[in-house]
Structure formats: structure tokens, C-alpha cells
């Protein structure tokens, strides 16, 4: 949807079967026009030609015509069958997953997408894929129904708890495309989305081997908070937000479940990101997932800096407590799995 026109009419075609969907769409538009114009023209023509000349007239009586009825039953039937066939062919291409696909695992959760590449890299609300490769998404959800939708690729599928559903695509054009959740899933449904980045293979390899960043820690943290990690889906939004309020908490006392209270310093913030259930703020449910293994120490530092900035504290000094010795080592986790298993152990 990067069109520069004033009002976009078509989303970008960015997958191998996008043109097929568009062709079917165009075919249907042609058929619609082919039906609409004669009918509307006939209505207008009759309405003018046979308009009332005298009140309460009795126009010449006319009887129905079996021939006409048969003709205009069969023609729409035949046309609708061609549409069905076209739809079936396109559908076949959309859902027949090629064998040589690169795997990406997707877990929906209110209200973020958690993705993991077959090679172990984790992403949240973002998907980086190389151009020209078949990518197969194996998807499920931890809670309610969601729907993984990429309009530019013309594909989507519901994700269903307790099951895997699959979509695949082969991106044809590098760029940044919208990713939506298209099945209503509760409060922040419209915020549950992000972007799909299609990259040249070389850039993708670079991306795999580490992320580059030219941002300040607060900016990087803001980006992580609002987009990449999706923290904002629970920790921002006003009175109804599900997570604790973060504005102005830095260096203040926080009451925890169980009656204790702690000072919200850097160590506390960092611990809350990595071990959310260990210190739950009073009045909230322990529903926050752990981000251990998904954020690098670098990113943690940025996040802490950003959360501090919400309290008006600037400066990016990191206290020693928040920055252990291994601060800059990237900690991509290769353990597939935890996230891919919906909570089934509540027996």
C-alpha cells in the first residue's frame, strides 16, 4: 500500500498469486459492469419512455415468456460457474503449500503476533522475509481467534486455538507491507498488527545476523515499546488498558500483589520485562508473557531508558544493576516451543 496516488485503489501486488486474485477481481468487475449497465440503462429507458401519460391508465397486458426466463436463468448460471472455477483455481494456488518452503511459526496472542523463524530468530509484530522464497507460516494462537492477514500478498487465514492453520506466500517485491489481524479478537484488535518486510536475500542475511540501529536508546526503546514488542497494546491506551500504567512510575513506590512494595528502579523494570510474574503490581492479573530470550540486553537498555523517559527522567545512564557484564551479547534464543504450545495444562 505504498501507492503515492491521492486515493489508492488497489493494494500492491507483492506475492506470486496476487495477480491471480486481481485478475479474478477484474473479471468479476467486468461481469458486474456487463450486467449493471444494460439493466440500469433498461430501467432508465423504460422509466422515461413509458412514464405515466395519463393517470390510472391500463397499459397493454403482457404475458411472461418461458424462453426469456430460461435464457436469463441459464446465462447467469453459466457465468457463475466460470466464477466458481476461477475462484477454485486461485484458492488451490493459495493453499497448496510448496514443499521447499522456509518455515516461520506464528503465535497470535491478545494483541500481538509472535513469530519465530525456522532458524530461531524471534520477532514480534514484524516479519522479515527474503524476496523470491516460498515462505510457509504455521500458525496458532494462545487465546482467542485471530486472523493473519497480509493484503499485499492477498492471503489470510484464521488462527484457531488448539490447532495449526497454514498459509504460504512467495514475496515478489521488496518493501514494507501491512500485517493485520482480521478476525475480531477483543479490546485492541485494531492495534494487533505490524509490518511485513520483504528484503533482498543479502539484506535478509544481514538482518539475520544482527540488527543495526542508528537510534538513541530512548527512540529505540520507544520503537520497541510501541511497535516491535507490542508493549503498548497493554501498557498504553488509557483507563481500560490491561497492564500497569507506566507513566511517572520511575523511582516511585509500587505496591505488589501480596502486600509488599518496591521502588520502581531500573532493576525492577528490567526484572518485570524478563520475569513478569515474579513481581505483579497490585490490581493486575499475572498475564504478561515473559520476554526472556526475545529482547537483547541492548534492547532492554533501550526499553528501560524509554520507560524512564515516560516519567520525565532523561539521560541514558544505566545503573549497574540493570546492566550485567554480558550486556552486549546478543541472546537470540533457539529454544522453539514454549510459545507454540497453548495453555493446555489447566486440568
Amino acid at each position, binding site marked *: 500500500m505504498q501507492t503515492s496516488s491521492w486515493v489508492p485503489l488497489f493494494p500492491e501486488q507483492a506475492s506470486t498469486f496476487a495477480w491471480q486474485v486481481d485478475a479474478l477481481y477484474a473479471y468479476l468487475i467486468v461481469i458486474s459492469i456487463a450486467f449493471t449497465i444494460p439493466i440500469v440503462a433498461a430501467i432508465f429507458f423504460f422509466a422515461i419512455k413509458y412514464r405515466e401519460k395519463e393517470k390510472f391508465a391500463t397499459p397493454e397486458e403482457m404475458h411472461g415468456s418461458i424462453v426469456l426466463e430460461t435464457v436469463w436463468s441459464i446465462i447467469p448460471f453459466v457465468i457463475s460457474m466460470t466464477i466458481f472455477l476461477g475462484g477454485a483455481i486461485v484458492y488451490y494456488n493459495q493453499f497448496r503449500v510448496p514443499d521447499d518452503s522456509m518455515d516461520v511459526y506464528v503465535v497470535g496472542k491478545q494483541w500481538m503476533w509472535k513469530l519465530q523463524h525456522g532458524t530461531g530468530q524471534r520477532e514480534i509484530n514484524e516479519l522479515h522475509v527474503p524476496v523470491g522464497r516460498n515462505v510457509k507460516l504455521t500458525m*496458532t494462537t494462545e487465546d482467542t481467534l485471530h486472523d493473519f492477514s497480509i493484503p499485499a500478498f492477498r492471503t489470510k487465514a484464521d488462527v484457531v486455538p*488448539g*490447532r*495449526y*492453520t*497454514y498459509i504460504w506466500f512467495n514475496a515478489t517485491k521488496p518493501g514494507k507491507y501491512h500485517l493485520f489481524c482480521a478476525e475480531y479478537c477483543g479490546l485492541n484488535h485494531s492495534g494487533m498488527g505490524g509490518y511485513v518486510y520483504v528484503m533482498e536475500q543479502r539484506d535478509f542475511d544481514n538482518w539475520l545476523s544482527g540488527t543495526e540501529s542508528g537510534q538513541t536508546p530512548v527512540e529505540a526503546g520507544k520503537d520497541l515499546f510501541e511497535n516491535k514488542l507490542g508493549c503498548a497494546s497493554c501498557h498504553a491506551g488509557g483507563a481500560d488498558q490491561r497492564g500497569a500504567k507506566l507513566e511517572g512510575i520511575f523511582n516511585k513506590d509500587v505496591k505488589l500483589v501480596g502486600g509488599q512494595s518496591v521502588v520502581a528502579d531500573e532493576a525492577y523494570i528490567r526484572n518485570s520485562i524478563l520475569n513478569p510474574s515474579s513481581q505483579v503490581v497490585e490490581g493486575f492479573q499475572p498475564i504478561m508473557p515473559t520476554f526472556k530470550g526475545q529482547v537483547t540486553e541492548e534492547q532492554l537498555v533501550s526499553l528501560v531508558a524509554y520507560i524512564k523517559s515516560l516519567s520525565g527522567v532523561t539521560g541514558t545512564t544505566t545503573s549497574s544493576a540493570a546492566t550485567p557484564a554480558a550486556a552486549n551479547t546478543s541472546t537470540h534464543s533457539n529454544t522453539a516451543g514454549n510459545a507454540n*504450545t*497453548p495453555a*493446555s495444562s489447566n486440568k
Partner: protein
Amino acid sequence: MSDNHEQHEHMNIPKYLAIFGILVVGTIATYFAATIDLDWIFPGANTLLALGIAFTKTACVMLFFMHVYWSPKLIWLSALASFFWLAIMFSYTMQDYFTRSLGVFSS
């Protein structure tokens, strides 16, 4: 149109008792047929037999106790249509379940 005034002349007490007898025999037959393992014929043969008996009993009740046999076509039609619509609901729902790739990993 139904002629209710003649209707009761179609059934008399011996006929009612005969239908009742069929129903009782059907019930007892269902019970004992269910204790015999018919899976050697094909899996689900027991269920099919039980449903067969149940439909026979239903037919008896509807035709004779509910006087459908002597009723106008509309009543026949509505009785049949309701079963037809049940069949639609069952078959079109099950065509999904029987052809769905399982994909279930935990339930």
C-alpha cells in the same frame, strides 16, 4: 383437507394396541441388539441398527398415533421436510469435519 370427523374410524383400540406392541418390541430389541457386538460386520453396525429401529418406531408413532397417515399432504410434507432439514444440517456440517486435515496438536 383433512377430514377429522372420519379420522377416528381409521384407528380402533386393537389397532392402537398393535402399534403399542410394535413399539414395546422395538424397545426391547434395541436394548438387546446393543449388547451384541456387531462390529464384525462393519464398525458402527450397532449404531446403524439402533437408528434403524428408532426410525421404525418413530414412523409408527407419527403415522398412527399422530394420525399423519390420514392427514393432508401438507402435514406429510412438513414432517418429511423437518427430517430433510436435519439431514442438511448434519451432512453439510460433517462434510467439513470428515475432510478437515486434523492439525490438532493438543486438545
